[in-house]
């Protein structure tokens, strides 16, 4: 018996891309013209930010790893566009888009990449560790799947407080084989946690395709059945479909306090990270095919042009503004100061950073 059944794609992905059948879904029909333009603008901003990052990386200003989201924009944009006051998100290391979409500025995001003190994590986290807890964004986590248990904890806290909220816990298809992810699934289902596990399935865990990494019964989301959890597969190239299916899962979380696994099929145009030459595990034609026929930003742009929401002029000005914003972020990052040597030993312990009359502990906590 074959280890892997034929991959179960969402119905809409089996057909050539055309007008979205989810455009009229209530969650999308209720969007105003301005809402739709705002959503498109957000997707364009993510794309231009990421593309500007490539330049900054090639200029040698970004150290370490840089994992880009280009090609996957509809996944984060669609899911995050539905969230309210008590909805939280947490993700893995491909985390820039989520940050921008919850409202972090391009400036703080770019400055973090270049390790500047003006970065969102003051130059202490880097590309994989963006955080904005004031915007319900809990990172940005570097270890594959390690964020999944944390997501259950955020959902647990929401439930403990009796809030009508949730935690969207994102991971890649490569995380699906980590033990911590399965432990998180079990706890979420066992304790009826208001959580949505979003598998951003871009087909490759680093350079290993799904076929070579994962035994599955048709799709990854179906593993939910082993935990008696709801699941669905989603066409991640269509932001309308992402919104429509996420809305169902979100309702399940808010009203029934039940978890869901959403497997959102998507594709990344660049390598796993900038250090991946992307030459050994997939061919250029495959990438080209996705770019030309399934690009989420372009497809949404076309839909909105057809709907008469966008005009060619508006598209141009939105994209020009996003590019300009990304350029300004790069300048800001360039001009920002580096952290000082004294900053290395700050932000390790709350208590050391907040010593005062009420502090009870003493002793040496930072050693020479």
């Amino acid at each position, binding site marked *: 018996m074959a280890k892997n059944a034929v991959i179960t794609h969402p119905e809409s992905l089996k057909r050539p891309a055309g007008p979205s059948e989810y455009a009229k879904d209530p969650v999308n029909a209720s969007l105003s013209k301005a809402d739709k333009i705002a959503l498109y603008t957000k997707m364009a901003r993510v794309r231009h930010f990421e593309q500007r990052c490539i330049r900054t990386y090639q200029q040698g200003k970004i150290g370490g790893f840089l994992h880009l989201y280009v090609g996957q924009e509809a996944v984060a944009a669609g899911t995050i566009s539905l969230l309210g006051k008590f909805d939280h998100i947490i993700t893995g290391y491909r985390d820039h888009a989520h940050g921008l979409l919850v409202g972090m500025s391009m400036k703080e995001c770019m400055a973090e990449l270049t390790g500047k003190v003006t970065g969102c994590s*003051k130059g202490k986290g880097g590309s994989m560790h963006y955080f904005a807890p004031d915007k319900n964004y809990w990172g940005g986590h570097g270890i594959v799947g390690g964020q999944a248990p944390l997501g*259950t*904890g955020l959902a647990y806290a929401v439930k403990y407080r009796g809030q009508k909220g949730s935690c969207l816990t994102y991971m890649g298809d490569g995380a699906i084989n980590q033990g*911590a992810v399965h432990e998180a699934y079990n706890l979420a289902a066992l304790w009826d946690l208001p959580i949505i596990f979003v598998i951003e399935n871009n087909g490759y865990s680093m350079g290993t395709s799904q076929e070579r990494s994962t035994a599955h019964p048709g799709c990854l989301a179906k593993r939910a059945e082993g935990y008696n959890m709801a699941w669905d597969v989603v066409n991640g190239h269509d932001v309308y479909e992402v919104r429509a299916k996420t809305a169902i899962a979100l309702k399940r979380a808010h009203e029934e306090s039940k978890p869901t696994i959403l497997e959102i099929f998507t594709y990344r145009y660049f390598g796993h990270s900038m250090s991946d030459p992307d030459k050994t595990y997939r061919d250029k034609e495959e990438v080209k095919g996705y770019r030309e026929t399934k690009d989420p930003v372009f497809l949404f742009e076309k839909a909105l042009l057809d709907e008469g929401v966008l005009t060619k002029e508006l598209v141009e000005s939105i994209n020009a503004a996003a590019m300009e914003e990304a350029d300004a972020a790069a300048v800001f990052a360039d001009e920002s100061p580096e952290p000082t040597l004294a900053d290395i030993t700050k932000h*390790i312990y*709350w208590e050391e950073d907040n010593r005062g009359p009420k502090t*009870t*502990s003493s*002793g040496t906590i930072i050693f020479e």
Partner: protein
Amino acid sequence: MAVISYREALRAAMREELKRDENVVIMGEEVAQFNGAYKVTEGLLKEFGPKRIVDTPISEAGFIGLGIGASMLGIRPVMELMFWSFSYVAFDQVVNNAGNIRYMSGGLINCPIVIRGPANGGTNVGATHSHTPEAILASHPGIKVVCPATPYDAKGLMKAAIRDNDPVYVMENTILYNDKAEVPDEDYIVPIGVADIKREGTDLTIVAHGRAVITSLKAAEILEKEHGVSVEVVDLRSIRPLDEETILASVRKTHRALLVEENKPFCGVDAQIAYLIQSRAFDELDAPIGRVSSIDAPQIYSKKLEDLQLPYPARVVEAALKVLA
């Protein structure tokens, strides 16, 4: 002041903090219905109900990670590990997530979690259940580690840990759970990072933590009675933060130091303390620093040999006499 056991002292600390702060939640394997694998949490489910006292599946990476995530949103989970040895399957959560989240977020996120449970050998259960990971964990900036040796310290340190805004790992000892002593009924904490002179002396300083303190106190009795030596026993109580000044003050008084711990010798807590003493009190020393650790092998099952593998009073006495020679 009542005479209660180390186990009851830990329970009293949790009970008082559960009453004081509705964000405190006790979570772990068998902590609720089963009343705790070692009965530390006995009766808490009945008193506080299932929202506050939560049984988890055997899933350390999952539930410890869940506790860390909940703590980021202001819940104050007190997570029981049935054995600290089981933290090894949750290491990514315990170290990477709890220990780094504040730093990597530039101070935006706190992790006020307590992870507690026994961390000791000497119970005849073999190598996998007998780890003492205080040195391993304390080597990570971002984490605090305390090791109470007495009922008084167990209660006071546990309460301080629950109120602390950073991750605090409390390492208990199953062999001490039944030890009894006077413990105040009223609210008190033992500040984290403050060592305690458990016995005053003038000829030799013994530095120890956890059960090694009790072993050292027995050795000190023998040394006094049989050899006329006056030994000072410094109980670290906290590994990180470390009360360096109390250690140094004692060494400056006695001019001789013996370090006793139940860890294996390589990179044990005492390696750090030996470095401290030689770097800041070198001229005060009248003899090389002595050391007693567990015999350097995975923890043996054989009861007879395990008792010899761990520090015991006669071995401490022998090592002390060498330092005093």
